[in-house]
């Protein structure tokens, strides 16, 4: 019964900064799916994600994370999710292990659980050999991978990523994509925004398209194609966002 609860449920979510940034979004993301949120620049994707993760208070509307009302019980909701912003800050003067130690502390993970996870994640993401370096010297890809390791150290049920592949080389992007697929395969839920439509096309089970703060289309790739009589996701996207 509990597993029928969506991983994320948004009801009439609104936020305005002078003009509406998010304008009444209703959205439901099922458990165990990889959901891609697409939209042109300034469409309201990041604002939506920041409200979902409790970084921004909505003007109105409701957010439920795995059945927990975010406004009513933010700590319990945050305990189950992780957020990776588009330009994560890693504290340049910390080493990867120290960063992971700090993040594990924030999520209250016991050392005996956190240490093997940290080791596994650093190995998996090819960062173990850089474990004794300060992160200020890391490349963009290394920083992104370490931030992802931080997001995964408490094994979140819902992983929310804002443009996780921007600026990564092919190898790093492949590692991140593999990690996301693996997370979903293990029952986790991933919501990501991306401008790389090929990523959404290949990885996402469902895709939502936002324009001017509203969810204008949603469904599987096949459903979206059918709706617009388009070819690739790019055609569909451009047709729906009226940029074609």
């Amino acid at each position, binding site marked *: 019964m509990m597993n029928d609860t969506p991983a994320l449920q948004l009801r009439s979510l609104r936020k305005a900064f002078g003009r509406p940034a998010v304008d009444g979004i209703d959205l439901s993301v099922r458990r165990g799916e990889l959901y891609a949120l697409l939209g042109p620049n300034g469409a309201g994707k990041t604002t939506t994600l920041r409200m979902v993760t409790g970084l921004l208070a909505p003007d109105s509307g409701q957010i439920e994370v795995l059945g927990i009302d975010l406004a009513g019980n933010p700590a319990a909701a*945050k305990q189950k999710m*992780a957020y990776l912003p588009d330009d994560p800050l890693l504290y340049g003067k910390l080493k990867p292990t120290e960063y992971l130690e700090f993040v*594990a*502390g924030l999520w209250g993970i016991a050392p005996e659980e956190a240490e093997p996870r940290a080791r596994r994640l650093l190995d998996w993401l090819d960062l173990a050999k850089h474990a004794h370096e300060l992160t200020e010297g890391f490349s963009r890809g290394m920083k992104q991978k370490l931030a992802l390791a931080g997001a995964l150290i408490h094994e979140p049920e819902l992983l929310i990523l804002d443009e996780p592949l921007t600026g990564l080389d092919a190898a790093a992007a492949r590692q991140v994509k593999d990690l996301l697929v693996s997370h979903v395969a293990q029952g986790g839920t991933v919501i990501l925004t991306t401008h790389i439509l090929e990523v959404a096309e290949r990885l996402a089970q469902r895709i939502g398209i936002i324009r001017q703060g509203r969810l204008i289309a949603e469904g599987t790739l096949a459903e979206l194609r059918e709706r617009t009589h388009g070819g690739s996701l790019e055609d569909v996207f451009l047709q729906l966002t009226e940029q074609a």
Partner: protein
Amino acid sequence: MTAPPGSSRWLLRHELRLAWYGAAINKGGRRRMGWASIAVWTLAWITLHVLAFVVLRKMTPGGVMDPRLAIPATLVLAAVATFMLASSLKASVMALFERGDLDLLLSSPLSSRSIFTVRLLGVIVAGAALYLFLFGPLVHVGVALGQFHWVGVYVAIMATATLMACLGMLLTLALVRLLGARRTRVLAQVLGAVAGALLFLLSQAYSMFSHTGDSGAAERTLRHMAESPWLAPDSPLWLPGRAVLGEPLPTLGMALLGIAAFALTVGRTHRFFVHGVQEAAGSARAVGKPSGAMRLRFRRSLFDAVVVKEWRLIARDTHLLSQVLLQLVYLAPMLFLILRKNDAPGPAIGAGLALLCSSLTGSLAWIIVSAEDAPDLLHSSPAAGRTVKLAKLAASVMPPLLLVALPLLWLLVRAPLAGFLIGFVVVAAVLSAALIVGWQGRPALRSDFKMRGKENFLCTVFESVNTLCWGGLGWLLVSLAADSGGAAGSTAMMAAGVLAAALLSLLLAWLLRKRLV
């Protein structure tokens, strides 16, 4: 006449423009001075001219110069030189490590010699600007009064700035060769801080010697100066002072010395400058422990994790560290005074310890609480904000308290009442300073550490009032402990008043508290 693009003059103009944009008077996102700034600076400039007029009339009655003036002039120039050295060390570190434009410049067709020359000129101008502003009025008023020899002030300042800039740059480059770029960065920052505080340390050392025990030191020094040919007014030791006073040969000598130092530094070291830049570029990837298995020993509690993270970040940030260390440098003479065997602790120790610990805590709390690098990470975590904030405040108060714990214990053993009172005031000052930043702090960038006072005016006011109150209370309570005479009653009243003011400032800071989001 405009300099052709790509020439040294063109680059110098670019450098000066950047320096102007970055100058303190242009802060606040503007590139031009506002009318208020212009008015303030003009007023200060005019006031300095009036002061210069008064000073010159006193110093040179009837236009006749006392040759003994060369001694204080030399001492002032030496003091200025230490500040210039501190500034040039910082500027050299900035030129090598912090400015991100060297890759662009060195990949352009400009010669490395031109780039280095212009960068060194920038360091010289930055070092000299303040002193030209402060002492320039002496020259202008002197010339207006027909005392043209005061032009020597300009020559002496520019020559000293050049010498110190060359020394600072050479020292930084030599340290890169000897220690590597990372350690140089730390050491140069610390050296800069110590050089800046050198004058204060020397004055404290002098007052320590002259006050007690060795009370004849000052007189002996003066007698020795009069007897020794090396310290007499016509000694070559005071040549820099004579240059300041505009004696032709010393002035010419200083000018030539400055030019020679500049030419030699540019000629001999511009290639090594490029090497230093390359070293610096690779330094960010320095490996702490090159080999061996990954060691993981995670801490059990959120509190510990936050405290350790904050201390690590400060300890590894050389720029911040040097700023904090500078405050410790000022604390050092006071510790000597406390640990001295004679005398009971004086009121100055109570006040000084409270002032310094409070200001050190304020700085640390600003870095730790206000200048959090990753607020999103903290806010998106389920960690209780209260626990995180408490841990951050604890991380701010622990270093100052640990630092003075031993001297305070020593005081408690030697003079229990005074020690207890000083301990009370220090702990209260430290906790208050942290709480005020916790209540009044605003999100900020660590790189704005030096500007923190201007960015959050209300917090600065609360911090200053609070610090002064606890310092004053320290003074009054220690005086009270030592004095059981007739003045004790009024001192106690004053102490009660100051305590009330300190508590009131805390209450106001709490009532007007902000939430850091």
